[in-house]
């Protein structure tokens, strides 16, 4: 009994002694904060921060007091946590989301030749600049889907890539992968973008794609914030810094090429609160609200574009957005 205790105790003591000495000799100075920061990072090693991986960026931001937050994939919570660990406030960059600026599905476009080769848009682009008639349009082979480290962009049944809003971190890997620079990053606060980047004049573009931007300019004319620029050899572009997401351009576009990141909720008037003042009817840009004075007004959901003007202007706070 005693001998067993002595034996094990003795071995344990000896081991502890050796380990204690080694702990001092082989001591490694590692900042524990670095581990804490690394835990908050997404760990996808996407490289959007410009460093070799999450570990490298964690090291940089911990050791360099001047380093800025360069990871686009951290959410608010993680940002707070990292700021707490490092003892300094880190400004998150405005979160971005990818949008695919081509709506040319195979049924609406023509091909110059039948492509037989690797299922990779960059490889297809090497063959005479790609098989699609429109040289600005999506080749539909899914390289963007393959390179996304978050699974946030998927090739749809329509042959075009679709961004999953909840998963996209704005890391930009798909932007690099697309050989035609069709995908663009816009601030998450933005919503509308033009789904076409064709530089062909309408006459040349029409035989190649039935849905592309015909550069008619109606959107630019109607925009109350002058956020849209267009010319005869450049598709319409929405300046996200000026865009107020009213959605008017979408309602007037003849080809329906202006797309939305998320469908804005439509307005609903609460009959109990509505005083029948008719202000909503007056401000509605698409005449989607109707009613009789002093009686509750009604929104025609089919016409409503979700611009939110009526909600803003209602003095009785009687209108709310329906979240689908």
């Amino acid at each position, binding site marked *: 009994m005693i*001998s067993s205790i002595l034996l094990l105790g003795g071995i344990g003591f000896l081991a502890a002694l050796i*380990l204690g000495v*080694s702990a001092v000799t082989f001591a*490694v100075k590692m900042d524990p904060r670095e581990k804490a920061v690394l835990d908050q990072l997404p760990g996808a090693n996407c490289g959007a921060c410009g460093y070799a991986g999450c570990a490298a960026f964690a090291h940089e931001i911990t050791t360099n007091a001047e380093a800025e937050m360069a990871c686009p994939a951290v959410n608010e919570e993680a940002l707070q946590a990292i700021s707490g660990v490092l003892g300094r406030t880190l400004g998150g960059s405005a979160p971005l989301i990818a949008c695919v600026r081509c709506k040319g599905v195979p049924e609406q476009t023509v091909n110059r030749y039948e492509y037989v080769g690797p299922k990779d848009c960059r490889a297809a682009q090497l063959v005479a600049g790609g098989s699609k008639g429109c040289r600005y349009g999506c080749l539909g082979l899914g390289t963007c889907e393959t390179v996304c480290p978050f699974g946030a962009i998927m090739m749809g049944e329509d042959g075009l890539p679709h961004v999953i809003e909840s998963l996209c971190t704005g890391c930009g890997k798909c932007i690099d992968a697309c050989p035609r620079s069709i995908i663009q990053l816009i601030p998450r606060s933005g919503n509308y973008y033009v789904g076409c980047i064709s530089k062909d004049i309408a006459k040349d573009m029409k035989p190649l794609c039935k849905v592309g931007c015909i550069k008619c300019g109606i959107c630019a004319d109607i925009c109350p914030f002058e956020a849209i620029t267009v010319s005869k050899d450049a598709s319409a572009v929405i300046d996200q810094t000026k865009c107020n997401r009213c959605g008017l351009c979408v309602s007037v576009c003849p080809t329906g090429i202006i797309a939305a990141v998320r469908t804005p909720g439509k307005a609903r008037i609460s009959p109990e609160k509505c005083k029948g003042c008719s202000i909503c009817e007056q401000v509605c840009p698409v005449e989607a609200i109707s009613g009789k004075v002093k009686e509750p007004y009604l929104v025609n959901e089919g016409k409503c574009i979700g611009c939110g003007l009526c909600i803003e202007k209602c003095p009785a706070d009687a209108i709310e957005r329906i979240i689908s």
Partner: protein
Amino acid sequence: MYYILLIVGAALVNNFVLARFLGICPFMGVSKSIDTSVGMSMAVIFVMTLASFVTWLINFYLLVPFELQYLQTIAFILVIAALVQLVEMIIQRVSPPLYQALGIYLPLITTNCAVLGVAILNIQLGYNLLDACIFAAGAALGFGLALVIFAGMREGFELNNIPEAFRGTPIALITAGILSLAFMGFSGLVK
């Protein structure tokens, strides 16, 4: 000659991973890349040989004289744990990237049945101190060999179009099984 056969026996004929099926955990966990496999093999060679040396001494100079053989398992584990801690410290100092890459699998050498297996087998097979150490070194070399070969294969079929259901561990296990079959070719090499 005897020692050469001892090593060949431990490394190839009765390979610890592929014939005795010990130490599968690090085998599966670390073999995704050849670099980490080589690092892990070095660590295991060090731990196995030194552990065999120390445990043999403890068994024959402490446990047997005091008739405390029943403490064999716990005493051996104590020694192995201490050695692994030492190796961990050394690796963290000498090569931090390797330390990061091995991650949890480094301390897992402690409970690695291959290391404990060698220590106990030394006693069971009645080896003297020198035989025990050489046997352990051979076993560790065999472990390293199997690990590096397997890592090479896994790196290779990382590029293949493996069906969704088989990706990762399933295909690794199937391949390990085939590798074991291949190593069965060594049986009968050493009587």
